[in-house]
């Protein structure tokens, strides 16, 4: 029997097979080491808008981190003798209603706004990923319970959820982060559940089960990695939403409390028509900071989405 068949298990045949495989990979000897992540990074780098956004964000981050070195005044130093001063050589962006340096506050506010934005988005994505993956993998009543909860959260206007939570629990930065995350997690949960349902039926997941993998293992090693690209995208876009939510809540007085500065509560100082008409240095800088940051985050998010899944380009 085995002598009826030509003995093909010889080294030269095997070597030929390697050669074919290398050719099929298309390219030089390094092509074999190109991981999906490396390919995504390359596509991202080709996207100029996204790279521009990323550079701007890095800049903002540097400003936030080195705020004490950049600001020439304390953001909390009240000078009642010099309130609502227009920009000058000393106060580059003027002073606010309490005579505090607007530039210093703007720079320090970057810390709070970025921190709240990133922390809330991170929390939302972690919770959403966990909920979505568990719902998708376990199915049945667990799925129903988790996803109906998510649907409920999604069917409230986000801002109302956050206002109610911030109102109930009292305004503070941790509460703000939790409140924003509570409004954002269902988006991530839905996405991850979708990916989980698709991956769950793949044969390699079945193979992993046959190899003795537990559900926790499947989640860690197969499902979350499979969804990771999209999780990063949703996470990034959530950062933009969270920064906006922070601004809105702080503007309404439910978020970051003065004297601590955030871009949102800086706008709060500029509610009257007089201020808007005649003192643009009070509201234009924080307004522009919010707009530019959110825009950059969205550019990066779009760039990441195109990089992670080239087939699905265009706006969300």
């Amino acid at each position, binding site marked *: *029997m085995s002598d009826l068949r030509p003995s093909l298990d010889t080294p030269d045949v095997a070597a030929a097979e390697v050669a074919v495989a290398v050719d099929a990979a298309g390219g030089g000897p390094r092509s074999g080491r190109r*991981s999906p992540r490396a390919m995504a990074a390359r596509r991202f780098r080709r996207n100029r808008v996204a790279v521009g956004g990323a550079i701007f964000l890095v800049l903002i981050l540097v400003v936030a981190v080195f705020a004490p070195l950049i600001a020439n005044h304390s953001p909390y130093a009240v000078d009642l003798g010099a309130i609502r001063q227009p920009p000058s050589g000393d106060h580059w962006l003027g002073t606010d209603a309490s005579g505090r340096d607007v530039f210093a506050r703007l720079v320090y506010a970057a810390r709070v706004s970025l921190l709240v934005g990133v922390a809330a988005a991170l929390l939302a994505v972690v919770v959403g990923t966990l909920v979505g993956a568990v719902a998708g993998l376990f199915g049945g009543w667990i799925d129903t319970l988790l996803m109906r909860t998510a649907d409920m959260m999604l069917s409230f206007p986000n801002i109302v959820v956050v206002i109610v939570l911030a109102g109930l629990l009292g305004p503070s930065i941790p509460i703000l982060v939790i409140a924003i995350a509570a409004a954002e997690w269902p988006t991530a949960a839905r996405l991850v559940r979708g990916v989980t349902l698709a991956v769950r039926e793949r044969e390699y997941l*079945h193979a992993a089960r*046959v190899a*003795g993998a537990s559900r926790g293992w499947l989640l860690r090693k197969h499902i979350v*990695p499979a969804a990771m690209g999209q999780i990063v995208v949703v996470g990034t876009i959530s950062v933009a939403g969270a920064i906006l939510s922070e601004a809105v809540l702080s503007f309404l007085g439910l978020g970051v409390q003065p004297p601590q500065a955030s871009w949102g509560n800086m706008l709060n100082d500029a509610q009257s028509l007089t201020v808007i008409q005649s003192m643009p240095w009070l509201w234009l800088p924080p307004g522009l900071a919010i707009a530019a940051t959110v825009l950059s985050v969205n550019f990066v998010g779009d760039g990441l989405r195109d990089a992670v899944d080239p087939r699905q380009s265009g706006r969300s």
Partner: protein
Amino acid sequence: MTQSEPLLEVDDLAVEFRTDEGVVKAVDGASFTVDRGEIVGVVGESGSGKSVTAMSILGLVKSGRRAGGTIRFRGRDLGALPAKELRSIRGGEIAMIFQDPMTALNPVVTIGRQIVEALRLHDKKLAKGAARDRAIELLALVGMPDAAARFRQYPHEFSGGMRQRAMIAMAIANGPSLLIADEPTTALDVTIQAQVLDLLKVAQQETQAATLLITHDLGVVAELADRVVVMYAGRVVEQGDVITVFTEPRHPYTVGLLESLPRLDRDVDELHPIPGSPPSLLAPPPGCPFHPRCPLARDRCRTERPPLRAVGAAHHSACHFAEELAAVVPTEVTR
């Protein structure tokens, strides 16, 4: 453990699937054993219950229900084991080789990492470096040229045959005592099939693992197996030594299978397919499930279900008239 105790003992296994049209009895009272170190071929048409039987051994029947019977592995009833112990047996003592190596590997994880994960899944204390070395060793063992470089590659960079090699490396990673190979060559080119069959032999010799070889290809069984179990409509209809079953089949279905086989070594004018088609498992025919297609069928076959009984030394058949086949079938059906 005594020598005589079989490694795997499937006894009166029944598996059902609920569908909109009713309950499908995919496996209906299948019994067979696998001894340590032996290769047992399970053959049958699509839907005969071969794969469901295999998945039942691992306790992983999708959406199906064990309706009865026991599966003993080394004397332990697998159905009664807690989930955690069952998981440590899966991929540990019992490993599986899948039909389609294209889909059974995660496309975005390197081959090496997948083998490393398989190792670390069963030995949590295994250091990364040691697991890596062992994985490369395994790849080399299954005839992967330049194993260290292959370790870092993704499944799409492998040919079908190479992927199946990687699957086999992964299956034998934890030194199983039972390998289940579900149609291991079906998805491969004919030339690669021969290589993979040779490799299965190597893997079997290397690990001394018993192998349950599930296939519809009688040639593969003839090539590799020591014993053969023929399944039809969820039941075992004949089992015995490969040479005995192929030269002196004692069930009309086995005879039909052998006669429908194209042969290269003899001039055959036409193939003789088995008339009819396999019965619907929603409503299997009463009596012997093969009677509507059987040339020997009589009244008794329509009412009385034939039990699997000894018809020779270590040769069993589930046919009321097995002995008549001795006269009917010329022993020309040789390999």
